[in-house]
């Protein structure tokens, strides 16, 4: 009723309402976060996540200036009252080199990060493959953990506290094995929004961050394609119109080349008939259909699937052991959006998401004559499956207020572990492990952006979530509040507060990306986690030099955290009674200061990001009930990213990162145990740190632009070959007839050259 009243009141005034989409002139791709501004009235707005805008203008002045990073600004006159319009902007290749790291969109929110897709390709990455997760880890407050791990650690949170959405579908496993690359193929992506704080009320379900990724809609005007060949993978992407300017498609696939390399690591001894063969591969496949049903109604169907495969076979004359692991995501989104009125935009989405992991073992013992003596086959599966419905309305009563409201309903089906085997003596255990867990999650929200004064904007919201598991219901209000005060001369101040609830847990002993990650719902014994976060910052923007400076600080408290008891891990032995095993009711706190200086104009662009932070945990049953640093607490985190355009064709880019060592547990003494052997005394959790990690990555690229755009990229990962610590271990070494305890450091990646070649047509 209130909304209706607001809309009605605004329509009585002497104004005209312009609404529509902003899109790319060449491809018809909707532009998210484009700016629409009336200079005379000093009124403006930005396009929403679907490229839609609505603006109210004085009836005698309907000129608009429309701009978007990397595109030529367009001035539009003679707009028709309450008209619906589609505004097309032309991309400017020269401007692409000046893409801002922090765009204007969502500028009201503290803790918001935006990395344009084009910028990704200018950041050197492991083995030359541009990657979203790696690029984000170079921004303040976000860390990718140590080499060889796949998680994303945002402001002292853990990887399971990140809500990762691809076309609104949750992606549970965001990276391929070992963290080489994420599952997101850059050639299929349109937009990446990251929230570390100040979460809009439309998002819920995780404590630490939201990574909202949108796939491209597909070019609805002409066919185009991309292909690349690199060390990690080969990539092909095609897009084009199905019906010109009405319907389009995009498909892209990526397949790993690593299998070719790993096959060379296989060993075989012909003399003893022993051998080991290993194979690893992964693939990603994205597809999207986009259909403009009417001028105001659009339908999307997007699909993503990706998997990792590991196969290990070892054998000799008397046995043959075969281990096969595979794990991956599948998501599908059906979305229909409609411009209900010039002031109301509606969207309905049906979403499916699945993460599954399988482990297959086949152990065969052979007789002398090669016949099978015994055979044991075990197949275990785990995963989580979601079906979600989302209904959302964007309402623009007037230029001072815009509202977003909606409801989300999700049905979760958790399969912590399902085991099938021919090994009958284990049948009792098997039956026990076949339990599936169901949960329903309902969310309703409203958020509003209110321009209180010309230089003061409030972005507030409220979300209510009800979570149902068989034995219990949980619910809670989650207030969100953001304030943006423009102080003048490019200076601004922002403050954000958000409360978040999280209803699922990741049981994982590490983050190497192996399929021993198991998702489970909150239960009455392990109730939902929740957090409160405050974040404030000062920002300075200098358009003349293309400089963006930000200084943010935050404090986040987390409750109802879980961890594993000392001496327990879930490797190879998981039980559905996980909530009896884990330690519950833990608390966490994380706080820090983040500094970012970005240069977005000129032949040299880049940024410096520095974070000073602390992240701690406390559990009654760990570390004698005292606070201890969380595993990925890294007090200092510095990234320097730069791109220098030597000529129009050649460019050089570099990343240097420096991180404090991660916290780990090392002994405080040594002693003789009850069995008479020397042993180490550990007196505190995460009481020491690994040596600091630092690394320089270099990249060179040569681009030739013509009818076919060709790019040759050369890269050098870890250019000065620094051995960054993956783990430390105290080992005994024989020295001069005696023994010595010393520390051995394990490192993963030394200097790695890379080459890739891509074409775009």
């Amino acid at each position, binding site marked *: 009723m209130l909304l209706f009243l607001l809309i009605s009141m605004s329509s009585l005034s002497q104004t005209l309402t312009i609404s529509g989409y902003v899109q790319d002139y060449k491809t018809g791709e909707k532009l998210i976060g484009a700016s629409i501004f009336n200079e005379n009235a000093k009124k403006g707005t930005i396009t929403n996540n679907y490229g839609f805008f609505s603006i109210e203008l004085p009836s005698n002045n309907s000129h608009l200036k429309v701009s978007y990073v990397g595109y030529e600004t367009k001035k539009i006159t003679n707009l028709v009252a309450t008209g619906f319009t589609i505004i097309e902007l032309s991309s400017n290749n020269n401007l692409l080199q000046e893409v801002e790291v922090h765009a204007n969109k969502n500028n009201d929110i503290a803790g918001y990060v935006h990395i344009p897709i084009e910028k990704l390709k200018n950041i050197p990455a492991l083995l030359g493959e541009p990657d979203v997760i790696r690029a984000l880890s170079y921004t303040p407050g976000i860390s990718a953990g140590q080499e060889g791990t796949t998680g994303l650690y945002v402001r002292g949170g853990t990887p399971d506290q990140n809500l990762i959405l691809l076309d609104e579908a949750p992606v549970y496993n965001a990276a391929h094995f070992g963290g080489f690359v994420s599952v997101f193929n850059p050639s299929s992506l349109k937009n990446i929004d990251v929230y570390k704080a100040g979460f809009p009320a439309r998002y819920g379900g995780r404590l630490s961050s939201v990574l909202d990724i949108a796939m491209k809609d597909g070019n609805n005007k002409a066919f185009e394609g991309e292909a690349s060949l690199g060390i990690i993978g080969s990539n092909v992407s095609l897009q084009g119109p199905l019906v010109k300017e009405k319907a389009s498609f995009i498909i892209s696939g990526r397949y790993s080349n*690593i299998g070719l390399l790993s096959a060379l690591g296989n060993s075989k001894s012909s003399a003893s008939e022993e051998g080991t063969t290993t194979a690893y591969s992964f693939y990603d496949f994205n597809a999207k259909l986009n259909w403009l049903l009417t001028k105001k109604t659009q339908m999307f169907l997007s699909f993503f699937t990706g998997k990792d495969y590991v196969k290990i076979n070892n054998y000799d004359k008397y046995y043959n052991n075969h281990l096969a692991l595979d794990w991956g995501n599948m998501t599908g989104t059906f979305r229909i959006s409609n411009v209900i009125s010039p002031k109301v935009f509606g969207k309905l989405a049906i979403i499916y998401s699945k993460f599954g992991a399988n482990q297959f073992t086949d152990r065969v013992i052979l007789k002398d004559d090669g016949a099978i003596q015994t055979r044991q086959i075990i197949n275990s599966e785990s995963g989580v499956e979601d079906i979600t419905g989302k209904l959302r309305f964007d309402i623009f009563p007037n230029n001072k207020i815009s509202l977003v409201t909606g409801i989300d309903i999700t049905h979760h089906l958790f399969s912590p572990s399902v085991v099938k085997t021919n090994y009958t003596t284990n*049948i009792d*255990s098997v039956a026990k492990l076949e339990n599936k867990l169901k949960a329903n999650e309902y969310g309703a929200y409203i958020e509003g952006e209110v321009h209180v004064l010309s230089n003061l904007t409030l972005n507030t919201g409220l979300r209510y979530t009800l979570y149902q598991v068989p034995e219990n219901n949980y619910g809670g209000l989650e207030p969100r509040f953001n304030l943006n005060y423009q102080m003048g001369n490019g200076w601004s101040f922002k403050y954000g507060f958000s409360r978040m609830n999280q209803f699922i847990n990741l049981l994982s002993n590490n983050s190497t990306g192996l399929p021993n990650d198991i998702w489970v719902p909150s239960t009455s014994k392990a109730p939902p986690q929740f957090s409160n976060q405050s974040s404030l910052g000062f920002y300075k923007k200098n358009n003349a030099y293309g400089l963006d400076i930000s200084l943010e600080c935050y404090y986040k408290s987390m409750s109802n955290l879980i961890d594993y008891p000392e001496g327990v891990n879930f490797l190879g032995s998981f039980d559905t009674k996980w909530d009896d095993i884990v330690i519950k009711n833990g608390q966490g706190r994380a706080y820090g200061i983040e500094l970012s200086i970005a240069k977005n104009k000129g032949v040299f662009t880049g940024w410096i990001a520095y974070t000073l932070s602390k992240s701690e945990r406390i559990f009654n049953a760990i*570390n004698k009930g005292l606070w201890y640093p969380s595993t990925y607490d890294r007090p200092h985190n510095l990234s320097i990213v730069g791109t220098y355009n030597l000529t129009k064709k050649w460019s050089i880019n570099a990343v240097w990162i420096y991180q404090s060592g991660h916290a780990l547990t090392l002994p405080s003494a040594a*002693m003789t145990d009850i069995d008479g052997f020397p042993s180490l*005394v550990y007196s505190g959790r*995460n009481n020491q740190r690994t040596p600091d990690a630092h690394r320089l990555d270099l990249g060179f690229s040569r681009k030739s632009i013509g009818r076919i755009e060709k790019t040759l990229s050369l890269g050098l990962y870890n250019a000065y070959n620094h051995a960054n610590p993956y783990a430390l271990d105290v080992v005994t070494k024989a020295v001069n007839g005696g023994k010595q305890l*010393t*520390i051995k*450091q394990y490192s993963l990646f030394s200097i790695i050259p890379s080459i890739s070649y891509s074409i775009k047509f």
Partner: protein
Amino acid sequence: MLSRIVFLMSFLLISCTEKYIDYELPFEGEKLVLNGLLISETKAKIKISHTWKPLGDVPADVSVRDALVILLEDAVLMDTLQYVGDSYQSNINIKSGHKYRIRAMRMGYNDVISNEILVPKNDVDFSYQQTKDINYSLGWDTPQDQIDVTLNDNKSNKNVYAIYFDLNLKAKNLDFSGFWESLDKTKSTTNNDKGCFLSESIDLDGVKQKIKVYNSRCFLGINPTFHFYLDKAYYDSDSFVQGYYKIPNPRLYVLKLDENFWQYLQLKSQPKEFNLAFEAPHTTYTNINGGYGIIGAASQAFVALTMNCKICK
């Protein structure tokens, strides 16, 4: 040439480097370490040593031989332990159902005292059956005895048992590598969780014994039966030259342990190397205030075994 390049790239990709690094670890100073298992109807034997720096040379001998060690029974001073052989021994026997504390004092070290330990009641009840005799033939899996041990636990879920075979190794000076053990899960257990079973090696009366430890909470209302296979590892000291030995006077022991010792055994092993990627080292469990180590308690029962190895000497 191409294959060499590909191989080099593969090597770089999968290489994992290791190196020894200089690292400073703070040392909290030397502290006394007390270790011992108080077994009912036997004398207390406690070994005392001291801690040393976590990095650097491992000292050849850390035993402490000149400490003042006293035994408190139900909070009353009962005995001063004497250093005999390599441990401090009491003059009196430990009694089941009583509570004990050990206190040690030595110049240059902080005084240490154990928590109060209750020696479990001496009601260990078990039966055993030798279900298979030695069946020697050439092959990798013989000779072998199978012994079934059933714990008559009144379906309790509060007890912790340790089972070991005293094979009189000290007398024969033989070094047997161990034994294999198998559990018939369909009959014996309803819960095969980690944390129900442990294999450990502890010093019992001067001999390192391999013990199997079971927590009855895992059996959910049944009296479990365990099947032990004493395979050729017990006999195969020098089979080709001297043949198999028949062990003189072997005994099967069942200990009922205090919960405190179970906790210690559970946390005794620390993750190493590859496992460090999956589990952090945990805080060392101790019940010694001011120092380290463990004083456990147990009551015990045993039975003599008959080895049927016909081909053994």
